[in-house]
């Protein structure tokens, strides 16, 4: 099959290019629309390129809504989740993989249960917890549901199990305690899976809509996702403004992806096969 296609593989290129157009066109169209006037956006037949490039939709949206706060909230939430979840998931995963302690198997199974439950089930109890802690409408509230990761423990445990025993035994003979082993040996060997888990965590937090919608109802406490949903309620059919808003919301993650492509793609691939 390999050779057969290589000999005359132009149909493959054509189909892939067609797929690319379908994948990219929505982004292109939203950018083009965002630079048109309202009247031009409603023209039939539509113009492809804007007659004159208008920047006013962007200034409209940014002055009417606290987009800077949306950014700060979104990335604040991501940073808090990353800082806590990476550390404590790695600790738990190391213990589950390499320290023989009482009840290890059973406790590990207990930690896996949430992976099988749709996350909506947790959301009202989590909301009540946020209310009790008085952290609704804050970045802490946004971060709350994502600070522990069953998936992270599972994935990192797989990784720690592949590290050869000899390394750890030598350290124990040298008088290293578990804490030292974890910090000086295990963590430095785990950069790749930690980066993968970090990207996973960040992407999930960035894309989530339901939790920010529920937890933070004040406009200046919203994330890019929930802020944008709010924007749609206000502008309803003013498409250039709506498209400007969505371009602003999509751009940071797309840029991050283009810079960190290898890590994004590599992480997904390993997470999927384990």
């Amino acid at each position, binding site marked *: *099959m*390999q*050779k*057969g296609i290589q000999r005359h*593989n132009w149909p*493959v*290129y054509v189909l*892939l290019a067609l*797929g*690319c157009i379908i*994948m*990219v066109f929505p*982004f292109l*169209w939203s950018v083009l*629309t965002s630079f048109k006037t309202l009247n031009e956006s409603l*023209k*039939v*037949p539509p113009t492809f390129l804007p007659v004159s490039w208008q920047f006013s939709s962007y200034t409209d949206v940014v002055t009417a809504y606290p987009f800077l706060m949306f950014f700060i909230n979104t990335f604040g939430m991501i940073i808090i989740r990353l800082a806590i979840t990476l550390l*404590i998931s790695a*600790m*738990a995963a190391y*213990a*589950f993989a390499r*320290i*023989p*302690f009482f009840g290890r198997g059973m406790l590990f199974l*207990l930690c896996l*249960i949430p992976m*099988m439950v749709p*996350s*909506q*089930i*947790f959301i*009202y109890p989590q909301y009540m917890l946020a209310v009790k802690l008085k952290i609704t409408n804050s970045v802490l509230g946004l971060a709350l549901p994502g600070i*522990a990761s*069953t998936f992270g423990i599972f994935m990192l445990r797989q990784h720690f199990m592949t590290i050869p025993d000899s390394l750890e035994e030598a350290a124990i003979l040298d008088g290293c305690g*578990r804490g030292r082993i974890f910090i000086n040996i295990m963590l430095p060997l785990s950069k790749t899976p930690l980066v993968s888990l970090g990207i996973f965590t960040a*992407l999930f937090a960035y894309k989530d*809509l*339901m939790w920010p919608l529920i937890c933070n109802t004040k406009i200046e406490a919203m994330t890019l*996702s929930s802020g*944008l*949903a709010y924007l749609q309620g206000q502008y309803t059919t003013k*498409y250039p403004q*709506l*498209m400007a*808003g*969505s*371009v602003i919301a*999509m751009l940071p*993650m797309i840029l*991050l*992806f283009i810079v960190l*492509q290898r890590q*994004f*793609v590599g992480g*997904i*691939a390993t997470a*999927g*096969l384990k």
Partner: protein
Amino acid sequence: MKRKHLSDNLWGFAFIAPSLLLICVLNLWPVVENLYYSLCKMKGFAKPVFIGFTNYITAFSDGEIGQAFLNTLFYTLLTVPIGVLLSLVTACFLNTGIKGKGFFRTLYYIPVVSAPVAVAMVWKWMFNDEYGIINYILKALGLSTLNWIADGNVILFTLAIIGIWGMIGYNMIILLSGLQSIPKSYYEAAEVDGAGAVKQFFSITIPLVSPALFFVIITTFISSLQVFDSVYMIVSETNPAFQNGESIVYLFYRYMFNVSNKGYGATIGTLLLLVILLFTCVQMKSQRKWVLYQ
């Protein structure tokens, strides 16, 4: 030796304590709470009153829930087969040793890193009945146009297109790394034995990529059953197609946080959990018949 035992136990518990504690508070206890709420009457922030299985009995005679389950199931049965097939085809194309693989992969992956809210908004604009580009293109090609957003017979197809578009990049990456681990020599041997491309695809590619394929099917199945963002952005309550487009998680959200009949919302959540567990069990059972683990 005894001291080592003790110290291992102490270290073990100390290392898992933060995660275990948080998982108990944030995930495990909420499952129990949700189960309890589903057996209660809860209006607003009033104290829950135990009413037994009343909510479940109501749920089974409630046409709205039935409709939402049917909508979600129809959506899932559209997105999973078509989406997985397109992902597999794309991955196979990218695995044929073509030039510019990295470039294609990057472009296909961009939808995965885009906020679903923004994406849904863009699609809603493109699917606009009067001014949308999609109806314009259909008209230009001499085809009949559709009322993509407000027609009850079309809305689930609209949502499915958005869902499929958004998942291909992710699934393709997983399938591609599965395909890349198949040794080239297998195909060479098959060629020598005179097996054609189709035979090779079904006898070598499919069995050897089956673990990745199984993972992709299970995860897209589960996430499709939980479709929410695009429904929230496109199928508002004022939309005439609301009844035909409402998904089960959207219904859950409405009862939990808008209608504020939280006991009933919790019941819907529990039913969703049961449906997901049921489908997952069936798929886990059936994997023995077709998934090949080496």
